[in-house]
């Protein structure tokens, strides 16, 4: 009994009032991930948009619906918003990067808020959430390379977005369970979905010696993001540890093959 209590208390330090995602203010307010956009001479970003609400309609819905997209730059400042009409039960692949100007930088975040929140969500006291699929092209690649969303990060009320992430009481580690190896190059993109400014450390640890070989520090504004680059040499095997007060510092990972030319994207 006492052992169980101690175990609960120990876990409580990490979980009490530290949800991954808070509840939005109202049941009619939709939720979105903060997806990452990249735009440059070599990057294009896409999003497959479809109306989630119309899947919940008992008859095949004909009602025209829309989604609002809000763009933020890397320091978390809103740079643009737009409304996209969607045909129910169809998808529309949007080139997200076409909305971004050169002055806005080469990476940042965006959120997608659906206008159609069906009554069944409200009846079940649930919130409709857009968790993705974003895709990227690099160097005019033929395929779009897909990755799904990570977080229920942000909601919207009366045209004004607000974040749902909370900060941890204690600093915690996110250990990416992926081997960094084979001469590959990596870019790790992390978002700040909390109301607090966040300091983040990326530590690269040699798995043979268990010693840190490199670390980099970043700070992120609320709504903002940071990008950390790393390159492996030869057959060294490295693992990444991210320390921060984010409840879950799960990064988007962009991987580039050097021995064989390829590009891959996934989340932690």
């Amino acid at each position, binding site marked *: 009994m006492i052992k169980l209590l101690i175990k609960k208390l120990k876990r409580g330090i990490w979980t009490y009032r530290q949800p991954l995602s808070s509840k939005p203010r109202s049941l009619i307010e939709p939720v979105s991930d903060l997806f990452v956009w990249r735009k440059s001479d070599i990057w294009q970003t896409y999003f497959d948009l479809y109306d989630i609400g*119309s899947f919940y309609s008992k008859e095949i819905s004909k009602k025209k619906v829309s989604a609002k997209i809000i763009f933020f730059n890397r320091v978390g400042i809103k740079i643009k918003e737009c409304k996209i009409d969607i045909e129910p039960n169809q*998808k529309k692949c949007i080139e997200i990067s076409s909305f971004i100007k050169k002055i806005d930088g080469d990476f940042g975040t965006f959120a997608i808020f659906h206008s159609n929140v069906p009554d069944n969500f409200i009846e079940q006291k649930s919130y409709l959430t857009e968790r993705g699929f974003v895709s990227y092209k690099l160097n005019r690649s033929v395929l779009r390379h897909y990755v799904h969303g990570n977080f229920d990060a942000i909601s919207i009320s009366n045209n004004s977005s607000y974040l749902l992430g909370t900060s941890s009481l204690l600093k915690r580690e996110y250990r990416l369970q992926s081997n960094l190896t084979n001469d590959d190059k990596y870019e790790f993109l992390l978002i700040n979905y909390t109301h607090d400014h966040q300091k983040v450390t990326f530590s690269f640890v040699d798995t043979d010696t268990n010693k840190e070989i490199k670390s980099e520090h970043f700070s992120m504004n609320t709504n903002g993001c940071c990008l950390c680059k790393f390159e492996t040499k030869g057959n060294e095997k490295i693992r990444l540890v991210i320390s921060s007060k984010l409840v879950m510092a799960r990064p988007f990972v962009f991987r580039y093959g050097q021995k064989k030319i390829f*590009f891959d994207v996934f989340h932690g």
Partner: protein
Amino acid sequence: MYIFYPILRAPNCHGYTTVHNYAPNNWEIKKNYIKNINITWSDGSIWKTKQIGVLGINKSFVINERDLDFLPKNALALSSLSVNKLPAESSVLPEDIDIDMQTNLPEWRGTIGLKSSLGGNTSFQGEAYSFPSNGSLLSFSPFMQYGEHLTNYLLFLSIEKSPIFRNTKLFFLKANGSKIEAEVLVTSNHINIIKLDDLGYHRNDMMVLMTENIVGIPLFMTSYKKGIELSLEHTHPPASFAIHGNRWALHKELKNIWAKRLSLIKLDN
């Protein structure tokens, strides 16, 4: 729940899975152990397991599909980590009772990928569990890509506790359609590889996958020129369209809506 890390197969590619013996965070698990690396597969009547190595603390190990020459052809290979030795043969999917890999933020994951000899290489961080044998599937997919030399595949991965190979129909619909575009026989405890390009889908069509009595993970792979480029991703389970509240009741409601739609379509046919 005991975690498995499948080793994928796909046309013109070979699968690899990297298993990791370190926790994904520093607060959910306080102890770690040296672990056995296992490969488990079904022959249709029994689960078989072979230990292929031992993994030290803080180490990772890459399992290549090509190296598993002891597997029967087309067998679904499930890798796993265990503190205790798993039985060589069992009538239900084996599990390690003492394993301490239960994390939530995030789950204890492996790197599951495909690469081709032409250079393409794609992966995701994932894990898999056995599904109940009385469940059904509903999945919405936007992943089809169109263009010259592009090929789209569904890799439908099904794992059940029983080693028996069960067959059932996987129905392909369009979200705005009123007919079944295709029905394909799929088998439990397999990676079912289905080419999607000739099923009649177009650029704006939202693909809907349904089964009545089998659950699986739908993975979508697109390949350019037989593997020069590869893209791989899985669909979200429809329950993840909602957060908080009674999201499982909502999920059930959604499945009922689509089950009714499917049964009406079948009656029409």
